[in-house]
């Protein structure tokens, strides 16, 4: 981040809490992480999002110091902690880590687990810190219990309290919610986010679940085959994905063919889009393009001349997600309020209402 100090006019670099420069990781000869760069500013929450096996956990473990880097540098608070030539010992990095299986120490109580990393403090200070964190994470009633008595969600809270106790520079969370019930995940994710923000802690999590990532993180990096495809906030990832792969991974949507008419209009089967009405877009240089249509881009409108046949429908409470087939055979998705209850096979009037135009050069036919 660049900033100008009003006093002396010098340009100061406020170094980000966590920074990765061109980091690659090789494990037993295989390139697992390939030239990844990003940074998280102090107090920010970042997330690496990707399918399992994409290298995101390896990247997190490299930040923690469990894996060496083969190229590039990892910096914590401006200081290099990992480079191909040297790696700071794990215990000296001051990173907190929350593991996928929580990894609580089963032989000691919850309170002793939380106090594990703060043995150098006086016993009063230790006790105070444990109480403070237990209050924050709402586990005050569990301090005397042993880990095997706790539910998954409770274990998770203890694991986070334990990692936070030594006031780490960065908190790393490896798939923190994957072992929890689906209903619990997003609630806990939001709650933990509040705690982290309250404490001003920089955090980095790894997840394969985009809703978890959206609920928790300020900035998200989509990882595929060891490469970072895009580093952006949730809104932009969804509405302006930088590549087809990101578009494919984030949210639902379909690609439809389009043709540029002049400079300011795109013609599709669903009508012509006037790009002057859209604020934020970038178009490829080709004439033939592929357009990403999200379900919320396709509106149900009985008055519309464009009709599509309902192929599938899924009830989602407030809305229906319809899969519709156009005359040409192209399929699109549409969200409609659930009082618009149509049967499969019925025709339905639709129109486009595109606020974010996402287009890629047309894919060659496979």
């Amino acid at each position, binding site marked *: 981040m660049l900033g100008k100090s009003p006093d002396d006019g010098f340009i100061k670099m406020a170094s980000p809490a966590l920074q990765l420069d061109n980091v690659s990781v090789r494990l037993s000869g295989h390139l697992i992480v390939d030239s990844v760069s990003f940074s998280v500013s102090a107090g920010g929450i970042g997330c690496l999002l990707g399918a399992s096996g994409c290298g995101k956990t390896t990247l997190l473990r490299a930040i923690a110091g469990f894996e060496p880097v083969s190229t590039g540098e990892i910096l914590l608070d401006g200081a290099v902690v990992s480079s191909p030539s040297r790696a700071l010992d794990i215990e000296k990095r001051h990173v907190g880590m929350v593991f996928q299986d929580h*990894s609580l120490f089963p*032989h000691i109580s919850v309170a002793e687990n939380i106090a594990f990393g703060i043995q150098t403090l006086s016993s009063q200070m230790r006790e105070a810190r444990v109480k403070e964190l237990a209050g924050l994470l709402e586990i005050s009633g569990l301090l005397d219990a042993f880990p095997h008595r706790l539910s998954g969600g409770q274990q998770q809270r203890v694991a986070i309290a334990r990692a936070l106790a030594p006031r780490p520079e960065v908190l790393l969370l490896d798939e923190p919610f994957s072992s929890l019930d689906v209903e619990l995940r997003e609630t806990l994710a939001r709650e933990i986010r509040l705690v982290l923000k309250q404490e001003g802690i920089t955090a980095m999590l790894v997840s394969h679940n985009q809703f978890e990532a959206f609920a928790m993180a300020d900035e998200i990096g989509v990882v595929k085959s060891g490469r970072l495809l895009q580093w952006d906030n949730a809104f932009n990832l969804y509405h302006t994905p930088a590549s087809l792969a990101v578009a494919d991974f984030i949210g639902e949507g379909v690609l439809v063919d389009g043709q540029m008419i002049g400079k300011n209009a795109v013609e599709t089967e669903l009508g012509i889009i006037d790009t002057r009405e859209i604020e934020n877009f970038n178009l490829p240089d080709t004439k033939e393009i592929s357009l990403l249509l999200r379900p919320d881009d396709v509106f149900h409108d009985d008055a519309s001349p464009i009709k599509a046949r309902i192929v599938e429908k899924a009830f989602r409470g407030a809305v229906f997600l319809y899969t519709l087939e156009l005359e040409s055979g192209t399929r699109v998705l549409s969200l409609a309020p659930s009082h618009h209850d149509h049967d499969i096979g019925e025709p339905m009037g639709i129109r486009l209402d595109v606020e974010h135009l996402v287009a890629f050069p047309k894919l060659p036919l496979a």
Partner: protein
Amino acid sequence: MRPWPLSLIALSLILATPIFVVLSSVFFPAGDIWTHLFETVLARYISNSFALMIGVSIGVLALGVLPAWLVTAYRFPGSKVFEWALLLPLAIPAYIIAYTYTGMLDVAGPLQSNLRDAFGWSYGEYWFPEIRSLGGAIAMLSLVFYPYVYLLARAAFAGQSGSVMEAARSLGCSQRSAFFRVALPLARPAIVVGLSICLMETLADYGTVQYFGISTFTTGIYRTWNGLGSTVAAAQLAALLLGFVFILVSIESWSRKQAQFFNTGSHSWPSPAVPIVGGRLFIAYLVCGIPVSLGFVVPLIQLSIWASITSDSIMTADFAGYLFNSLTLAAITSAAALILALFIAYGRRLYPTQLSSAAARVLSLGYALPGTVVAIGVLVPFAWLDNRVSAFMVARFDFNTGLLLSGTAFILVFAYLVRFLPIAMNTVDAGLTKIRPSMDEAGRSMGLGPMTILRRVHMPIMRGSLATALLLVFVDVLKELPATLLLRPFNFNTLAIRTYELANEERLADAAGPALTIVLASLIPVILLSRSLERAKDVPSVGEKP
């Protein structure tokens, strides 16, 4: 009740007779002998047994825990070899290692002779540790029992989730302090299980303490019975010993439960091994090398040297006789144990009742019983039965049947079954649990009859476990000394008995032939065990104890 569970309960009652007999002996007056024992030797039995247990505890922990940590957490040239080689001393029965080291280290042995020649000393002019002492016995027992601690500690360390150690590291622990603060406390219940097994074996040992002239419970039982001729007093001593054993059994089973709570999760990877280089490598070799070489390599070499010196006198008709007796006893016992174990396992599977599992629990106590206790517990009821039968036959037919059962090998096989059936039961149970009830149901739904399912589903899956059960019991019978010594028919010799006799005649070199035979046979189950090590991550059950 159906015949199957009923006979299961009957069987467990019959095989539990020795325990009941020994325990009930406390209600019978033993007269002056007990007063005599109490006034003279009892305190010594107890203090010696305690001193042995304390010494062996320290010995096996020192020899077993650290190598277990080194081979799981670190990687160095040869660490994979040490991983299984550290088990090898299990193949040497305690009495055999005691005889071997005595032969090597006593006054006339090669070490002292060479020292005298080299330095021109003569006998009595120099100090040399006396092997036939309490300290010597502790060293001998520690050298052959530490693998139980090693085995359980290794399994516990290997089963610990790598992320638990990593969590400790991320909370500011070095690898070393993570060992003391996390890995070791987590392995503690498993180590205690291993330690209690070692102490049960220590209490059961007869051959070593007898040879070293240390009065403990086992030698006391033998002496009270053989020397003083009092069965009741011997049984009462056995009951006291049994009390100690039951304490150990409770500690063991409590620790096993504790170990389950200390489970650190299954969907996690083990810690990557850290390479050892430089000067620390030397320490690693010392820590792993000393137990293997002193507990196995050195005694094996010495036995082989003696056996080759005395090879002319080994392969005799007498030797063939002992070998035949040993093999026959082992074969009969292992076959009987397998059949009974199958009977029990299927009985429990087909009629799973509280009572039948209680019966199985009673049966499984046998593994903890010292051979001398089993012998007393078996002899008393058999002698009573023989007397009754003989009195009846004399009165009715004027024909004395004499010692119909207690003078024959039958009583020996019965005693072996009491002691070793649990080993067969554990192994067969482990095999049978691999066959889930849904497999039977799947077979039935495909139209197969029960016998076809048994043949086509159960037998192929169980085959390995059945062979292991046979082998384990076979080798244990081959090694067994105290019960055989007390119960054998007159002039009936086995390899173990012959080893014992020759050693007690100070013909240690001559004893090497039968001793080496026992050691080589005992190696087979140890090799099997080490091969299954790779797979075993859980706390091994008693059935895996060779």
